[in-house]
């Protein structure tokens, strides 16, 4: 499926994030469009109503700040007048007002951790436990390399007759070092990237505290299945047409940072070579399951948690078929331009299909938005999904309600009569298609072509 039109993509922002672009700016794929100047730290609660001496339900009337507002230490948060005096509650430290209590009279306060300071956190263990630094290892409840959550016990000491003592992790992260000379444990927090990028080339049409939205005119090539996140790069279309199989020999240093698209498939050797040269993405008609397993290191379909080294989008699936001629030609005409690729696939919830986006006019922000094509109708070009004919292309002649035609499986469903296209390549359709000008196909086994 391919469509040309107006393409919009939104980047939602956490509070305190700052858009780094303004409406009207023209941005590239890797332009930073928003940034958070902090790492999200601990959320605490300040007993503001109690400190003010007011009923909890009246707290909103006494507030001097709003949720989402950043304040400095000592900044007044709320105030209440008692006869001739004012009671004031101030921010105990720099931070953000996260939320105001509904019933209990609290102000929930997010402690921001400035960038850089939290790159490594060193936690004193020896001191609180009252043990020599060299003895710290004996009291640890974690080991180097272990993931820890905020509040998790890092070390504890419980001895008869002694007050129990423990040291808790102040961050979510990983234990990176135990320093026997200082008696400290070093932790690497898990939060890292604090910027978000445009993902597509285009014009910023919205930039406020909630979201940055980018729009541009171009083509969306939807895939059936993908894996890997958003990426972008120079489009490289291998020669050989829509039947071509990308081989190891065809992959070279010029594919570093590229999105390779248009081939029918790629060999295992080509996938490995793409990984070696640092390609960013692959968009092909199909990949065999075994090749995908080799690439990702696990079976992704059956619950595996493998992650391929670059984003992969399959236009049709896992059985041999060729790329559509129209898609190949269109991709070839875009060779050298920068395209965006997202492998995120949610077949069930939300039905998000993976995509390759090619923006041709980043300044155009008006016009018909691109939309996923609807269900095939007579006259529409389709691809057959039945395994025996997978990838064969044709045109719907007639749609028949369930019971009006009998399939070889004798399943009674809505069907379509499809006139099949003659083909030249060797990779798709299966032999049954060769001799059949028309085929009765389950309606649900059709996939709209461009």
């Amino acid at each position, binding site marked *: 499926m391919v469509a040309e039109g107006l393409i919009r993509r939104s980047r939602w922002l956490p509070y305190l994030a700052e858009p780094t672009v303004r409406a009207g700016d023209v941005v590239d794929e890797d332009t930073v469009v928003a940034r958070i100047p902090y790492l999200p730290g601990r959320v605490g609660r300040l007993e503001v109503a109690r400190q003010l001496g007011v009923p909890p339900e009246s707290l909103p009337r006494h507030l001097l700040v709003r949720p989402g507002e950043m304040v400095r230490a000592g900044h007044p948060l709320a105030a209440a007048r008692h006869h001739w005096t004012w009671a004031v509650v101030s921010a105990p430290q720099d931070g953000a007002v*996260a939320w105001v209590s509904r019933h209990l009279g609290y102000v929930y306060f997010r402690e921001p951790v400035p960038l850089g300071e939290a790159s490594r956190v060193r936690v004193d263990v020896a001191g609180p436990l009252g043990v020599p630094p060299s003895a710290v290892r004996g009291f640890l409840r974690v080991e180097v390399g272990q993931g820890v959550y905020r509040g998790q016990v890092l070390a504890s000491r419980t001895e008869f007759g002694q007050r129990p003592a423990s040291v808790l992790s102040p961050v979510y992260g990983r234990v990176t070092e135990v320093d026997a000379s200082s008696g400290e444990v070093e932790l690497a927090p898990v939060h890292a*990237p604090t910027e978000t990028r445009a993902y597509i080339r285009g014009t910023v049409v919205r930039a406020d505290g909630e979201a940055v939205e980018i729009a541009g005119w171009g083509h969306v090539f939807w895939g059936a299945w993908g894996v890997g996140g958003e990426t972008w790069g120079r489009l490289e279309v291998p020669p050989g047409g829509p039947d071509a199989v990308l081989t190891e020999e065809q992959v070279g240093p010029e594919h570093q940072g590229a999105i390779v698209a248009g081939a029918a498939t790629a060999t295992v050797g080509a996938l490995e070579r793409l990984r070696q040269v640092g390609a960013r993405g692959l968009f092909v008609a199909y990949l065999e399951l075994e090749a995908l397993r080799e690439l990702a290191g696990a079976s992704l379909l059956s619950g595996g948690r493998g992650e391929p080294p670059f984003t992969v989008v399959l236009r049709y*699936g896992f059985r041999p078929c060729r790329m559509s001629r129209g898609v190949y030609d269109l991709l070839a005409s875009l060779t050298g331009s920068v395209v965006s690729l997202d492998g995120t696939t949610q077949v069930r919830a939300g039905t998000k299909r993976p995509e390759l986006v090619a923006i041709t006019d980043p300044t155009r922000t008006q016009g018909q938005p691109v939309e996923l094509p609807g269900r095939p109708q007579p006259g529409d070009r389709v691809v057959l999904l039945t395994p*025996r004919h997978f990838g064969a292309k044709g045109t719907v002649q007639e749609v028949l309600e369930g019971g009006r035609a009998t399939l070889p499986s004798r*399943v009674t469903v809505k069907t379509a009569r499809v006139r099949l296209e003659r083909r030249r390549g060797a990779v798709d359709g299966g032999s049954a298609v060769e001799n059949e000008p028309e085929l009765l*196909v389950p309606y*649900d086994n059709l996939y709209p072509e461009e």
Partner: protein
Amino acid sequence: MGEWVLVSDVGSTTTKVLAFRETAGRLRLEGWVQEPTTVEAPDEDVMVGLVRALDRLGRALGCTFVAGSPGPPSALAPPFAAAGGCIPDEVHLDRSRVRNFLSSSSAGGGLRILACGATLGHTAAVARRVALGAGGLILDTIAADDGRPLFEKFSLVRSLRPDMILMAGGVDGGNVAFALELMDLLNAARPVGKFGKDFRIPLVFAGNVDAGPLVQDSASDCFMVHVVPNVQPTLDRENPGPARQAIQELFMTHVMAHAPGYDRLAAWVDAPVLPTPGAVSRLLELVARQLRRAVLAVDVGGATTDVYSGTDAGVVRTVAANVGMSYSAPNVLAEVGREAISRWLPEGLGPADVEDWVAAKGVYPCLVPHYPENLLLDHALAREAIRLAVRDHLLHLETRPEARVAARPPRGRAPISWRDGLLGATLVVGSGGVLSHAPSRAQAAGILVDALLPVGVVELAVDSVFMMPHLGVLSQLSEGTALDLFFTQCLVPLGTVIAPAGDPGPEGSTALAVRGSTLPSGRVEVAAGDLVAVPLGPEAVEVVVEPAAGLDAGAGAGRRLAVQVKGGAVGLILDGRGRPLRWPPGERRGAAVGGWLRGLGARYRPE
């Protein structure tokens, strides 16, 4: 007063309307139609699909069920089709024709849950399990320590449009900070449910008891917080029941009720709209009470598989949330492995074909078996899906004493063998597209026998057009009518399976013989390892079962059993394979499976 009784089930994907009319003092099914449910855009009104279905059904039966339309009956559908969620106010049921209109619904479109927890590897995993166990679809799992950048989490929460959020974490008396951090994230992200900004998303908090009040206190107006007991009150104990129950109740009372158009649907019906599974449970309870025997029902869907065990003491339902024939097909493969599915395939098909078919379904969930080999693969998948779902059901009963009580067989019946005996059920009803719409009833029977491996003497049936929810709703008006329709028009008896437990003996020996005056030649012998069906009508007849020395049909090893059996669309099914099932070794397995299918008359290839 009209003569028609209309009953609809507004499901998550299809809206099915059945029309009944009284003939000779009894209600009879006269016709049915189904249309896509229109809960999602562009229509966003369940009434659109319902009115389309009513209109089409009326035209098929030569009358109109909907009045006040802008045009003549034949023109009714196009305006609605184009209206994009606009059923004019003047459109109403034509009560001069419709005596009663009733409905069940699960039109929330599935229960989409965002699971949250303190740690990804622990409490979020528990939350995920609970949500799945409650029949939910997990959109994603977020945790304070999942390592994802804040931007990504925000986009995730904003884009997922969950029906519900389940938050867990911390043992009782432990950490509360995670709850505040997650609430901060959720408050700031302000997720929008699929029913729009006015819909407050239910947030079930099932974590540290100390954090509950703080979650209630800190949640923004986007959320409707329900605090339930901790799913993990201590490190060594899980307590999923209350959270699971809260999720299911909230889905029925809150999420489903917010399906657009639901209020109008509620105004049209003559009795309360029942949740679809509730309607099925209601019917099965009546059936079990009427029959005075235990009934097991399996409804194999695309995404989930429901299992009901009913006795006169009540019905227990479980939902295998990630077990199904379309969206969940890859999960079934992941759970059981490709060899487990391929063992049900005859010669010529193997594990690679299984993986291929399931992979295709993972990408295109609505893929239909086009050729016989596709159908064989689908039916092999169904066998394992049902096995998984029933296994979960039995495990649920083992861990829930109260459910065991509800599922106990009627007084005086044989004790239940929890693992092997299908809860003592002597009637099994299969439902769902793969069973109800199998091209031949023998194929459906084969799926049920292989998946459940019943022991002893068990009747099999399928729901003809999946009308159990409709009859459950109808029972609100008349239990007797619902039962009458169930036995006469809903239930399609497949036959009785006689499956002795134990070792059937060496190959070529006779595993069992059955004598009866209505059987061919008065006596049928079944060889060890064979599965055969002999024609038998649906009337009850008495037969004598003579098992081999190592087999027990219910009277003891090698002992004769005189029993009443009923045939059906398939007949009397004689299973000489023994229990547990022994698989022929190596290459002979495929041939044996082919033999079983032929023995049942389950032909897959065209004549």
